[in-house]
Structure formats: structure tokens, C-alpha cells
């Protein structure tokens, strides 16, 4: 070596410098492609309705575990990060923001009841994360165009759909049995205030004579329903619409039985036909109870539904709930979108999910459920009303929805209330 710098060494040095500059980017990309896809969930994991959060999470886990066991996509698996909002809107909003900004979750599953769902919805609208509402059934969430955004979807059933089907079902029974005096009870929050008039409106529009003799609006998660029960009792109704759910519904029925409230009153309780609720109610309303199909493994009567129910039971040692299938369907939309786009980029996923059809235990279009593109909410899911019996299968004589009629009435309703 004579101290001069050869051309070869200059090139080698240049390449080395270039490589060292490129390396972090290359490694970052490689790391991004190998790291898990972080998915967030906020829900209610404590308190009277903890079963909501628990069974929602279970519904998601079943799908994510199957996805991960199959190797994920490009080696990337899904990691679920869950947070307990305790059902408080302010906590739901804060936790959603934390999951997006601090935990780096690009996909959020919102397992919140309607009050908190609106709060989380607003956070997601101002973010670039994909939000899938898997619990909130309040119609306005997706029907109101002003609330829509490119990144928010709903895989939960819709209150209006239940009201359309339930209203027709209840009207038929009311006309057959001469039930004209109606009372209502639902929790005093967005869903209760919305679902009650919708249901009663469809009872009336289906030709039943309705005299509303009492309305009761207890607080959500109220422990004592005595004042509501005695108020309803005083009005001597023949039929009762009940929009309560979970532990609230169980307490109401248990306490109502003490007063003989249900001895002569037919109860139309949207949320009764869910295994965890049915198995907690010690004595069903004596004069007859009817419910929407929240979740029962016999409706729809297909092997896919029964096998999903069995798989859930085997994995978690309990029966699935309505919330479980809603979460399952939401997870399937996201997983299918990840597979189709080979990406976890929210914008790509959102584009893929619009109008997507996925196979679902409750799918009613050739076993599939559809994410309607115009309002980004699901249709063609199992929807029906039937009579409650005390033992398995719990829901019998189910009258399934005619989806074309449901969609026609939904369009009419949207036009009527100004959402059309």
C-alpha cells in the first residue's frame, strides 16, 4: 500500500455507506411485515353487563385464533388488545384514542352499548383507524348520513330491523288474542328511547289497535325496578314491550314475578332469547314471552350455525351470545379484507369491506351476511321472532324475516325521518 486510495476501495466505501443508510429502512419494512397486526377492543368487562364484553371478546378470539393458527397473512398474525370502558362514554372515547395513538392499533372493534359507541365513533372519525361497531344496535349510528365516515362499519344487528320484524310479529299475536292495552319499559338511553317507539309504531302500522297505558324509563343498570313494576301494574296492560337486556332484564323479570306482573301480561322482550339471559331467569313470564332471536343455535337451522356454537362452547366452556356472533361477523369482515388486500392498511381494508359478503353462522344469503356499502352496516343476518320456552331450544315457532320486506320498510322509514 503506498498511501494512495484505489478506485476499488472508494467504490467499496461508497457502497458500504449507502448500505448503512438504507439498512434501517429495509429493516423497518421487514419488521413491519413480521410484527403482529394489533387490533383494539373496548367493551364492558365489569359490572352487571360484563357478559357483553366477555362474550364479545370470545367471539373475536375464536376467529383470530383460527386466523393465527392458519399462519396469518404473510406471516403476520393478529394480536388483540382489550380495554374495559365500564360502559362509560368518556372512558370509551379515551380508551379508543389510547388504543389508536399509544398502542398503535389501526383496527378497532367497538364493543360498546350505544351511548359509548357514539363517543368512540367520534374519535374514530377524526383518526385514520378502521372502526368496526360490533355491539351498538341503535339505528341512528349508521342511518344518519351525517354520522357516517369512510372508516366506520357496523357488524351488529340494527334496532330498526328488529322493530320491523317484531312489530309485525307482535301485531299478529295482539290481533289474535285481542291485546290492545300496551305498556313499555326500556332503559333511558339512546337505544331504549329509539327502539321503543320504533317497535310500537310497527305494531300499530301492522293493524293492531294500540292503547299505550304506561311507559317506564329506568336508568341503565338500575338495581331496583319496583317503581317501574308497580307503575306498569297500575296501568293494567295486556301486553308489555321490554327493551331491557342482560342482568337488567333478569332483575326486572325476577322482581316482576314477585308482584305477579306477568300473570296476565304477554311480554315481548327483544333481548330475552340469549343463552346467558335465559339460563339466569329463574321463572319465565307466566302468560307467555316472545323474543327476537338474539342467539340460539337452532336459528338459523344450519349445520354451520350449530358447529360454530359447538366450537365456541368447546373453546370457552359456555354458550355464545348475540354479541358473540356480532363480534364473529365483524372479525370475519376484517380478516377477509386483510387476506384480500394482503395488508392491514385501514384505507385498503375499508374499501374491501364495503359491499363484502362473508360466510357467517347467522348468514341468511346463502349462508352469508352482507356489509351494505351505502351505510356500511350489515343486512341478511338471521332475524326472526318466536315464542320462549323454559328449556332448550328456548325459542320455538320462529317466524323468520322476509329481508326484502325489511329493506323496503327500512327505506320508507329513512325517507319518513329524513335519513333517506
Amino acid at each position: 500500500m503506498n498511501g494512495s486510495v484505489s478506485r476499488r476501495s472508494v467504490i467499496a466505501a461508497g457502497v458500504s455507506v449507502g448500505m448503512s443508510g438504507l439498512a434501517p429502512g429495509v429493516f423497518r419494512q421487514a419488521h413491519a411485515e413480521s410484527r403482529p397486526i394489533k387490533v383494539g377492543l373496548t367493551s364492558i368487562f365489569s359490572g352487571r353487563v360484563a357478559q357483553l364484553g366477555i362474550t364479545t371478546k370470545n367471539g373475536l378470539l375464536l376467529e383470530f385464533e383460527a386466523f393465527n393458527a392458519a399462519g396469518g397473512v404473510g406471516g403476520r398474525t393478529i394480536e388483540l388488545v382489550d380495554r374495559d370502558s365500564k360502559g362509560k362514554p368518556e372512558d370509551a372515547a379515551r380508551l379508543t384514542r389510547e388504543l389508536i395513538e399509544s398502542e398503535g392499533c389501526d383496527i378497532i372493534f367497538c364493543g360498546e352499548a350505544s351511548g359509548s359507541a357514539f363517543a368512540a365513533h367520534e374519535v374514530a372519525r377524526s383518526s385514520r383507524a378502521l372502526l368496526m361497531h360490533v355491539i351498538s344496535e341503535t339505528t341512528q349510528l349508521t342511518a344518519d348520513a351525517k354520522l357516517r365516515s369512510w372508516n366506520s362499519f357496523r357488524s351488529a344487528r340494527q334496532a330498526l330491523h328488529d322493530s320491523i320484524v317484531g312489530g309485525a310479529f307482535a301485531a299478529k299475536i295482539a290481533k289474535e288474542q285481542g291485546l290492545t292495552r300496551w305498556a313499555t319499559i326500556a332503559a333511558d338511553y339512546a337505544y331504549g328511547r329509539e327502539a321503543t317507539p320504533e317497535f310500537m309504531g310497527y305494531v300499530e302500522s301492522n293493524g293492531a289497535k294500540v292503547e299505550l297505558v304506561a311507559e317506564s324509563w329506568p336508568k341503565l343498570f338500575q338495581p331496583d325496578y319496583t317503581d317501574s313494576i308497580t307503575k306498569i301494574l297500575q296501568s293494567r296492560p295486556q301486553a308489555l314491550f321490554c327493551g331491557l337486556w342482560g342482568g337488567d332484564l333478569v332483575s326486572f323479570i325476577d322482581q316482576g314475578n314477585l308482584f305477579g306482573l306477568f300473570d296476565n301480561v304477554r311480554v315481548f322482550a327483544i333481548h330475552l332469547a340469549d343463552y346467558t339471559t335465559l339460563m339466569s331467569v329463574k321463572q319465565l313470564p307466566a302468560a307467555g314471552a316472545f323474543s327476537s332471536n338474539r342467539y340460539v343455535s337452532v336459528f338459523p337451522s344450519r349445520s354451520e350455525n350449530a358447529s360454530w356454537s359447538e366450537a365456541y362452547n368447546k373453546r370457552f366452556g359456555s354458550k355464545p351470545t348475540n354479541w358473540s356472533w356480532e363480534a364473529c361477523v365483524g372479525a370475519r369482515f376484517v380478516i377477509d379484507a386483510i387476506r384480500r388486500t394482503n395488508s392491514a392498511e385501514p384505507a385498503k381494508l375499508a374499501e374491501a369491506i364495503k359491499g363484502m359478503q362473508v360466510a357467517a353462522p347467522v348468514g341468511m344469503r346463502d349462508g352469508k351476511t352482507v356489509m351494505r356499502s351505502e351505510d356500511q352496516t350489515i343486512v341478511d343476518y338471521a332475524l326472526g321472532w318466536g315464542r320462549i320456552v323454559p328449556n332448550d331450544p328456548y325459542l320455538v315457532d320462529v317466524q323468520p324475516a322476509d329481508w326484502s320486506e325489511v329493506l323496503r320498510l327500512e327505506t320508507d322509514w329513512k325517507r319518513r325521518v329524513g335519513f333517506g
Partner: protein
Amino acid sequence: MDLSALGICAATSSCIVTQVAAGLISGFLLFLVAAGLTLIFGVLGFVNFMHGSFYMLGAYFAYAAYAATGSYTAAVIAGAAGVGALGAALETSVVRRIYHADVLLQILVCYAFILIFDDLVGIVWGDEFLSMGMPSAFKRAPILLFGGVIPPFYLFLVGIALAIAIGIALLMQKTRYGKIVRALADKPGMVAALGINTQLVYASLFALGAMLAGSAGALAAPVRSMTAGMGFAILIESFIVTVIGGMGSIAGALVAALMIGLVRSFGSIGFPLFTEGLIFVIMIAVLVVRPQGLFGRQVREL
């Protein structure tokens, strides 16, 4: 606001009977919890924010005992005695160390225990709600009185709560223990100087207060779905009762609890959207007009 409905109700015997019964039921259950709270605050000067947890634990202990024995009597005894023993243990190990501490510290310690008890309940009994079910002895048709409806189980609850109320009143007014407790509330130093083991009295009183909350939880268990955190709502109501009735006054707690129960019962017919609001209006009115509460003693500042 539907005052005409309230007027119609007031003119109907069936409505009056049913609503009065409903008010008494809610009121007496609330009294059982609030009585313990007011005793602890009135004598020990301790703001027991974990009192709602005692109510919750009473319900869960009763649930466990009922599941094991099938006996509602055993369930109520287990709920009351279990929480009473827990109260005694807590007083001797933790609470007595903070009697003279800042109120903020007392509240923080209580809040820590609320979280601990909620988590323990979740670990032991799970996070999902539980339902105990009605004991077979009470599975019978409601009693009809002047056209009004009274469930036998609630009649039993009112009877038990009334008996407990009378028992506490006698204990405090007619026994040596009651005299010591009342003396402790006024002149603790003098009581100690007389050679009385004041720490033992404090512990027993805290245990008694806890036992009352536990018994309320156990008694109500057949008609309330149980869940971790269920004590919080009744804690707030108990504080309202204590404020209206007067700190440390058992009679005040009884009157205030019954007043709340009746306001809620008749309010659900006449002004359902303002029932809770009216309860707070009453509380504010009492605080303004008679700050020591309806039955509380005025403390003169020197």
C-alpha cells in the same frame, strides 16, 4: 310530569296500597345499608366509602351459602356474619390507623378497598352477573290488599328490616353498650379514662355497621342480580339518606330512607323524569335549612 295520574292514583286504594308498599320496600332496604353508614360516621367520624362493598359482599356470601345449603336463612346469616367479621378484621388492621387522618386519605384507602373487593369478587365468582333465585318459601302469589299488590317476600323483608331497626334503637338507647357508644361519640377521652376498652367498642361498632350492610345485601340477593361493583349505586343513596336524616341518627336514617322510597314510588307515576332530581332537591333543601339533617344534633362551633 303527569300530576293527573298521581291524582288518580291518590284516589284509588289499590294504587295507594301498591305504591306505599313499594316505597316501604325500597326504603327499608336502603335503611339497612344507610343505618350502618350513619353509625360508623356518627360515632367513629369515619367516612366509610367502602360501605357499598360490604353490601355487595353480603349478597355474594349469601349466594355462596345458598348454593351450598339451599337454605335462605343460612344465606342471610352467612352474608351478615361474614361481612361483620370482615368489618372487624378491617377495623383492627387498617381503619383504626386512619381515624385521625385527613378525610382525603380515608377516602383513598376506602377507594383502594372498593377496587380490591370488586376484583376479588370477579376472581372468585366471575365477572358475569349472578342470580340467586327466589327461595321456595316465598314462591307464592302476591297478597291482595284493597286491590293493591304486596309480594310476600317483600313483606318479609320489611318485617326483618323493621325488627333490625327496633333492635338497633334498643341497643343504642337501652343497653350499657349503647350508652358507651353514645358517650364515645361525644367524649371519647372521658370514656377511655373510665377504663373502658374503647378500641374494642370501635371495632365492634364498625363490625355492626358492616354487618347491617351485609345483611341488606344478603336479604336482597333473591331479587337483585349480583355483579362486582353493585354496591356503588346504593352507596350514593346511603349518603343521601345520611345527609337528610342527620349524621349518626338511626331514626333520621329510617325517616330519610322511607321518604326516598316513597318519593321514588309515587314519583314514578306523577313525575317519572324528575324522581331522582326531587330526591336531590330535598337533600339540598335540608342542607340549606337544617344543615345537621332532620334528626341530627347541631354542633356549635366555639
